[in-house]
C-alpha cells in the first residue's frame, strides 16, 4: 500500500524494553550529564565547560534515542458525521392552546417545523439529521408529517425517556449524537413530572450533547382540575375515612367551588373550596364512613366552569375496597364446657374478631342463692336475636338449646335467625347434648338452614370416633390443615379421635350442603355420620360440627406433640369461610388495574374454583360491565384454563364508574357469581394539567449546555452541536527512524570528540 493512503501520522516507540527500564535508562543518561557537569566545575574557561557538557548531553540524548527506537506511525483516518435529532412532542397536552384563545401548541410546533425545515436540513452538511415524534415512547417520524397540523394523541410525556432513547441509538449506529432539538410544551408527566431533580440533571449531563429546547406555550389556560386523589386501597366498614383531593385552579378569581365525593352515583361527602387569585392548588379533605363492605368506585367531582380548557379533568374516579375491620361473632353456649372454653379462647385472642359471648351459667332448676350475690345478668334475648342480630357477621351456637328457657321464648326468634342467614348471615351449630336433634331443632325454622338433617330420635354416640375427610373435604378451605391433599389427610388422621357425636343425617348436594368430615365407624341411615358439614343457604352460609370435642384437636393434640394448630386452623378456616372472606370465594375477579386511562380496555382475570375448591378448569366465564344506572355496557366471555383462570377484556363505552359482574358455570355445578369495580378515568395525565412548563425545558437546555427558545418566534434559534468526532478507521504503518546509520555515527562522533577534548584539556 502506498504511503499516500495514510492521511495522519504520530510518533511511536518500537523499543522492546518496558517503560520502567526506559525510565531507568533515562535516569542513567541524566546522571551521566550531571557527573560531567560536576567534574567541570573546576574549569575556569567557560567555552571549554560548555563544549564538554554539550558533547556529554548530546551523547546521552543520542543513546536514549537509539534505545527508544522511535518510529513514525502512519495512520489512515476518516471524519464521521454525527447525528442531530429533532424531537417533536406528540402528547395530548400539545392540543391545548399556546395561550388562552390561541392556536393549539401542536399547530404552533408544526408551523415552526414547516417554516424552519430548511434551516434544520442545512445542518446535514455537518451531521445526519434524524426526525422523531415522542410521547410515552419515541419513534422515528417523517418530517413532512411532523410539519402537518394534526392533533396530538399520546397519553403521556416522557422527555428524559425520549432523549435517552435517541441517545441509545448511538450504540447501534456507531454515530454519536451531536445535539438534539426538542419542540415541546414541557408538560412532562413521567420522570420529570416533579421538575429536574439533581439526579435527572446528572442524567441529562451524562447524555453529553447540547439540547436546543424550544418551548411551545407560554400561559396556562383557564382550567379547574381534580389533580390528585390520595386514598388507601382499602377502608374499614363503619370507620371514618378521609379522601384527600387536590384541586388545581388556573385563571380563576375569587370563586366558591363545591366538591363532591360520590359512591357509584350517591353523594357520600361534600365540601366547598374558596378559590383565591394567585393560588393554584387546594387540598380538600372529604370524610365519610362506608356503611357496607365490597368494592366500589368513588368519584371526586367539581363543576365545569365556562371557558375551561378541559372539562374531563373535573372528575377523578378511584376504586376502594371496603372491608370489615373485625369480624363480629356472637357465641352462645348452653352451658360452660371445654369446647366452649377453647373456642372462646381462640376467638378472643384473634385480633380480627370482635367476640360477644353469652353463656347459660345457671338453669331454672339450679339453686345458687340470692340473685344479688351473683354476677349473672339476664339473657338479652330480644336484643341479640332481634335488633342486634344483623350486626353480627356470624352466630355460633355451642351446645345451646332454645327450649329450656320458656320465659325467654327463644323459639320466637328462630325464624329471624333463619332469615338472617338466608340474607347473607352465617350460622354455626356445634355439638353437645343440647344441639341438633337433642336440642329439638329438627322441627324448627333453623332446620331450613342447618347443613344436616337433625330429627329427634337419632340420638348421640358416646364412643370415640376418628373422622375422615370426604372427597370434598380434601379441598374445601374449611378442612385445609396443611397444604396439599396428602399432607392434609395426614394432618387429619394424626389428630386424636373425638369423643361422641350428635347423630344427624346428611343433606343432599341439591340442598347446597357438603359433608367435609365424616365418621366411617358410625352409620346413620346406612351412611357415615357427618362430623363437619357446610351449606350455602340463600346468600348466607351455615356450618355444623356434630361433636362437642373439637377441642381435642388442640389441647389433646398438644399432649401428643402436635401442638394446638389444627384446632386454631380449623376454626379460623371455618370462620373465614362463614363470613365469606374474599380469599375463599369460589369466583374471584381481579382487574389488572383498578382504574384505566381513557380509551383503554378493562383487562381482568376471572378465577373460578369448583365446588370442591379445585381449579374450575373449563368453566364458562361471563363478565359484564355495568354502569351506574344498572345498564350492561360491555360483555365478554371466556373459558377458564387448566388453572381455572379466564382472561377477558371489556371495552368501556366511556369514562365513568363500572361494576364488573362475573359468573362462572360448569356442568353439574351451581353458577357462581362475583362482583368487582373499576373506574375509567375521564382524563389521563395529559389532560389533567393544561399548563405548559417552559421552565423545565430551560433547565434541560442549561443542564446540557444547549440553548432555549420559545414559540412563536420568527428566526431559527441557535442550535449547538458537539464537535464532530474523528474516528480511526484502523489501518496503520510503523516507519522506524532510529535505525539510520548517522544516528549511530553521531553518537560515536560525540563520544569520540568528548574523549579527544578531555585528553587535550587535561581532564583525566
Amino acid at each position: 500500500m502506498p504511503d499516500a493512503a495514510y492521511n495522519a501520522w504520530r510518533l511511536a516507540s518500537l523499543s522492546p524494553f518496558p517503560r520502567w527500564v526506559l525510565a531507568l535508562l533515562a535516569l542513567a543518561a541524566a546522571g551521566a550529564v550531571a557527573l560531567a557537569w560536576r567534574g567541570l566545575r573546576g574549569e575556569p574557561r567557560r567555552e571549554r565547560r560548555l563544549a564538554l557538557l554539550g558533547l556529554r548531553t548530546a551523547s546521552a540524548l543520542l543513546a536514549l534515542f537509539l534505545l527508544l527506537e522511535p518510529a513514525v506511525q502512519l495512520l489512515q483516518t476518516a471524519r464521521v458525521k454525527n447525528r442531530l435529532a429533532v424531537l417533536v412532542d406528540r402528547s395530548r397536552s400539545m392540543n391545548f392552546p399556546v395561550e388562552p384563545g390561541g392556536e393549539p401548541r401542536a399547530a404552533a410546533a408544526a408551523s415552526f417545523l414547516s417554516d424552519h425545515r430548511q434551516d434544520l436540513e442545512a445542518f446535514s452538511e455537518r451531521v445526519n439529521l434524524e426526525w422523531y415524534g415522542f410521547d410515552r415512547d419515541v419513534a422515528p417520524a417523517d418530517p413532512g408529517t411532523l410539519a402537518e397540523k394534526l392533533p396530538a394523541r399520546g397519553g403521556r410525556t416522557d422527555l428524559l425517556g425520549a432523549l435517552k432513547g435517541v441517545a441509545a441509538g448511538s450504540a447501534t449506529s456507531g454515530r454519536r449524537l451531536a445535539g438534539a432539538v426538542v419542540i415541546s410544551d414541557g408538560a412532562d408527566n413521567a420522570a420529570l413530572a416533579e421538575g429536574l431533580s439533581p439526579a435527572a440533571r446528572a442524567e441529562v449531563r451524562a447524555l453529553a450533547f447540547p439540547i436546543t429546547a424550544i418551548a411551545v406555550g407560554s400561559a396556562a389556560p383557564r382550567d379547574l382540575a381534580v389533580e390528585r386523589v390520595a386514598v388507601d386501597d382499602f377502608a374499614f366498614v363503619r370507620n371514618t375515612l378521609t379522601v384527600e383531593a387536590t384541586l388545581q385552579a388556573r385563571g380563576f378569581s375569587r370563586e366558591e367551588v363545591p366538591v363532591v365525593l360520590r359512591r357509584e352515583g350517591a353523594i357520600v361527602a361534600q365540601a366547598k373550596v374558596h378559590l383565591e387569585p394567585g393560588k393554584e392548588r387546594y387540598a380538600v379533605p372529604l370524610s365519610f364512613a362506608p356503611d357496607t363492605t365490597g368494592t366500589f368506585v368513588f368519584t371526586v367531582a367539581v363543576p365545569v366552569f365556562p371557558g375551561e380548557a378541559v372539562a374531563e379533568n373535573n372528575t377523578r374516579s378511584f376504586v376502594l375496597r371496603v372491608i370489615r375491620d373485625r369480624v363480629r361473632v356472637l357465641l352462645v353456649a348452653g352451658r360452660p364446657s371445654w369446647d366452649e372454653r377453647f373456642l372462646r379462647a381462640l376467638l378472643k385472642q384473634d385480633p380480627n374478631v370482635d367476640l360477644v359471648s353469652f353463656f347459660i351459667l345457671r338453669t331454672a332448676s339450679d339453686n345458687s342463692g340470692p340473685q344479688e350475690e351473683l354476677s349473672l345478668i339476664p339473657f338479652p334475648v330480644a336484643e341479640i336475636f332481634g335488633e342486634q342480630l344483623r350486626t353480627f357477621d356470624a352466630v355460633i351456637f355451642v351446645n345451646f338449646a332454645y327450649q329450656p328457657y320458656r320465659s325467654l321464648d327463644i323459639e320466637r326468634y328462630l325464624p329471624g335467625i333463619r332469615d338472617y342467614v338466608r340474607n347473607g348471615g352465617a350460622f354455626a351449630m356445634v355439638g353437645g347434648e343440647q344441639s341438633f336433634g337433642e336440642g329439638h331443632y329438627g322441627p324448627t325454622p333453623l332446620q331450613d338452614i342447618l347443613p344436616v338433617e337433625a330429627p329427634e330420635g337419632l340420638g348421640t354416640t358416646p364412643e370415640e370416633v376418628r373422622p375422615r375427610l370426604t372427597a370434598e373435604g380434601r379441598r374445601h378451605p374449611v378442612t385445609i390443615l396443611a397444604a396439599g391433599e396428602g399432607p392434609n389427610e395426614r394432618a387429619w388422621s394424626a389428630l386424636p379421635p373425638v369423643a361422641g357425636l350428635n347423630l344427624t343425617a346428611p343433606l343432599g348436594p341439591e340442598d347446597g350442603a357438603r359433608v367435609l368430615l365424616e365418621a366411617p365407624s358410625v352409620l346413620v341411615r346406612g351412611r357415615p355420620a357427618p362430623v363437619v358439614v357446610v351449606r350455602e343457604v340463600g346468600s348466607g352460609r351455615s356450618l355444623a360440627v356434630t361433636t362437642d370435642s373439637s377441642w381435642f384437636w388442640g389441647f389433646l393434640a398438644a399432649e401428643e406433640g402436635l401442638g394446638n394448630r389444627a384446632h386454631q386452623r380449623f376454626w379460623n378456616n371455618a370462620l373465614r369461610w362463614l363470613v365469606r372472606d374474599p380469599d375463599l370465594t369460589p369466583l374471584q375477579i381481579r382487574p389488572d388495574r383498578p382504574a384505566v386511562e381513557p380509551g383503554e380496555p378493562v383487562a381482568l382475570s376471572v378465577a373460578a374454583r369448583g365446588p370442591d375448591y379445585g381449579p374450575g378448569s373449563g368453566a364458562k366465564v361471563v363478565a359484564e360491565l355495568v354502569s351506574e344506572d344498572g345498564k350492561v355496557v360491555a360483555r365478554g366471555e371466556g373459558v377458564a384454563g387448566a388453572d381455572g383462570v379466564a382472561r377477558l377484556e371489556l371495552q368501556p363505552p366511556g369514562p365513568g364508574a363500572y361494576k364488573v359482574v362475573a359468573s362462572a358455570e360448569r356442568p353439574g355445578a351451581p353458577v357462581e357469581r362475583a362482583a368487582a369495580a373499576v373506574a375509567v378515568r375521564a382524563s389521563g395525565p395529559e389532560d389533567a394539567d393544561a399548563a405548559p412548563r417552559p421552565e423545565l425545558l430551560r433547565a434541560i437546555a442549561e443542564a446540557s449546555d444547549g440553548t432555549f427558545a420559545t414559540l412563536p418566534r420568527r428566526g431559527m434559534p441557535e442550535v449547538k452541536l458537539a464537535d464532530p468526532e474523528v474516528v480511526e478507521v484502523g489501518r496503520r504503518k510503523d516507519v522506524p527512524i532510529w535505525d539510520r546509520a548517522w544516528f549511530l555515527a553521531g553518537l560515536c562522533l560525540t563520544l569520540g570528540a568528548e574523549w579527544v577534548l578531555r585528553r587535550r584539556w587535561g581532564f583525566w
Partner: protein
Amino acid sequence: MRRRTFLHMAALGAGALAFPRRASGFGDTARLVVGQIQHGGRWNPRPTALRRLCWELMQRTSIEAGNDAVPVRLASPRLHRHPMLYLSGDGAMPAFSEPELAALRRHLQYGGFLLVDAADGSDGSGFDASARRELARLLPTSPLARIAREHVIYKSFYLLDHQGGRLLVKPWLEGQVIGGRLAVVYTQNDLAGAWARGELGDWEYDCSPGGEPQRETAFRLGVNIAMYALCTDYKDDAVHLPFIMKRRS
C-alpha cells in the same frame, strides 16, 4: 352387712340419684372432671371434698361435672383429658421430676388450669414450702403473685370479696399467669377441708374462724374457680360490667 356399711352405700346411692345425667350421651369429656394430681406425699388428704364440690356445681350452676375427681399422674399420657387439675397435700411433698414438670408446664401453656390447695394450713413449711418450690420450678417466669380483688375470678359466678376455707391462713389467693390468663391458683386456706363431707352428711371439719359462712364462701370460691377454668374472663366482657358494678355498689 354392718349398719355403717349399709349407711355408706345408701348415701352413695342417694348421691348418684341426685346427679342429673344431662350430658350422658357424650361421656366424661363433656363434663368437668377434675384431675387430681398424685404425687409422692399425702396427695389426697380430703378424699370426699372434690366429690362434694362437683355435687355443689351441679346443684348451683349449669356446669356438668363428673361424680368425683380422677387421680392422675403427671407422667400419664391422658393428662390432657383433664384440662382442670387439682394439687393438694398434707405435709411436705417430694419434688416433681423434670419430665413431670415439663408435662404439667405443657398442659398449662396450652390452656390447662391448676388449683393448688394446702390442706395442712402450713405457711412457710410443710406443703406450703413444697408447693411454692414446685410452682417456682414450674413457671419460673411467672412467680406466684397475689390475685387482685378486682380479678374476674371473684366475679365469675358469685360476687365475692373475702376468702373461704377450713382456715384463713391467708386472706387472699395467689396465682401464676400465662398470656394474661390465670393458669395456677394457690390457696393456703384448705378449701377442700371446708368442702369435705362425710358419708353420713356431716361436715368433716369445722371452719375457723368464720364458721359456716366461711364454709359457704369456700364453696362459692370453688364454684368461681371452676367457672373461671371453663369460661376464663367471660365476666369481664363489657356487657356484664354495668350489672356487676350495680350489684357491688
